[in-house]
């Protein structure tokens, strides 16, 4: 597969890491989603500039110990699914940073607490 895919976080989405779960809420329709671990990595890595295959190689394969080809296929399907729900933007060209939601790194420090007392 020669074509490159780029993914970016939709600016229409609000996202926070709560404990170990990534919650995202669509600004339109107020729909709440909980991302699974793979989708969370995809969301966190979706800077619009890094190609999807690179995200798979560097972030997803080491994390889940899957074969690159299988991981690439699954990641592409997942990205399409997230795009369908308006969570990610997908393009065959790099995506401008102006259209990307704020990174969630700033709130991950608040996510240390896993279970309330």
């Amino acid at each position: 597969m020669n074509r490159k895919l780029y993914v970016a976080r939709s600016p229409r989405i609000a996202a926070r890491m709560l404990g170990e779960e990534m919650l995202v809420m669509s600004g339109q329709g107020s729909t709440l989603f909980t991302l699974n671990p793979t989708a969370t990595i995809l969301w966190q890595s979706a800077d619009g500039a890094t190609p999807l295959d690179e995200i798979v190689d560097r972030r997803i394969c080491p994390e889940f110990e899957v074969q690159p080809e299988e991981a690439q296929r699954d990641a592409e399907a997942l990205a399409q699914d997230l795009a369908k729900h308006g969570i990610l933007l997908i393009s065959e060209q790099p995506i401008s940073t102006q259209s990307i939601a704020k990174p969630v790194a700033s709130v991950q420090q608040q996510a240390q607490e896993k279970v309330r007392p």
Partner: protein
Amino acid sequence: MPGLAVQVERYSVVIAIGGIPVRLNTTDTAFLELLQNRYAGFVSEEDSTEYDFDVELTPPPFTGADTDVRVTYGAGRWLLRRGDFRAEWEPATRRGSIHQTANPYSIDAVLRIVHTLVLAKQGGFLLHSASAIRNGKAFLFAGVSGAGKTTISRLAPADATLLTDEISYVRKHNDDGYVAFGTPFTGELAKLGENASAPVAALYLLAQGPENRIDPVTVADAGRELLANMLFFAEDQEMVHWAFQAACDFVHRVPVHRLTFVPDARVWELIG
């Protein structure tokens, strides 16, 4: 030809919920009296208000309150619509108007919506929950209809101050805490909450079961359930973001537990 000017007497009542005074102006003395009775305990003598609404009473054809509410923003103003009312509100001037028939339910809905819009940017919210003050601390009891909000309110001991049996009012206080206020928004108990406030000590997610017990809740579950119980009306992306962030901030700062209880006053031994 000189115009004929008619001076119409306007009457006002200031209703302060959550420490936010809202003035309602009307030309109808009977409606004024209805408002004063409906919001007794929350009527303020303050002259300065944060928001001002002219209430224009309209005869039917306004339909009932069972249609969906729509809250949209455009051209610098909020438009609030339901079968039984139509209201506009301009945040920049803090003024608005309400068109409705002479009933207390429409104005109740408008006040709830206006307060959710005001609170969202401040990190606060209205919540489907009962709340009460005990030993100087406020406790929230959230749940959908039938979860036990009215029951836990009925079971409250004499030393508890009931803030509401239906809709709690939560404001962010500085950067590290929240304050719950009493509201006149009632549920099955049909009793106005006390116009009092206290720092929020905990949020309990209600469940009815065979015994009284408190269980931990993951912060993600707390966030999901808080969002599910928040009152939110606006079809506006920015407001959705504010509400989402408010819920996430709250569950990071306030202990959230699952409270399973039998309809028995001893459940309050676990609270406070």
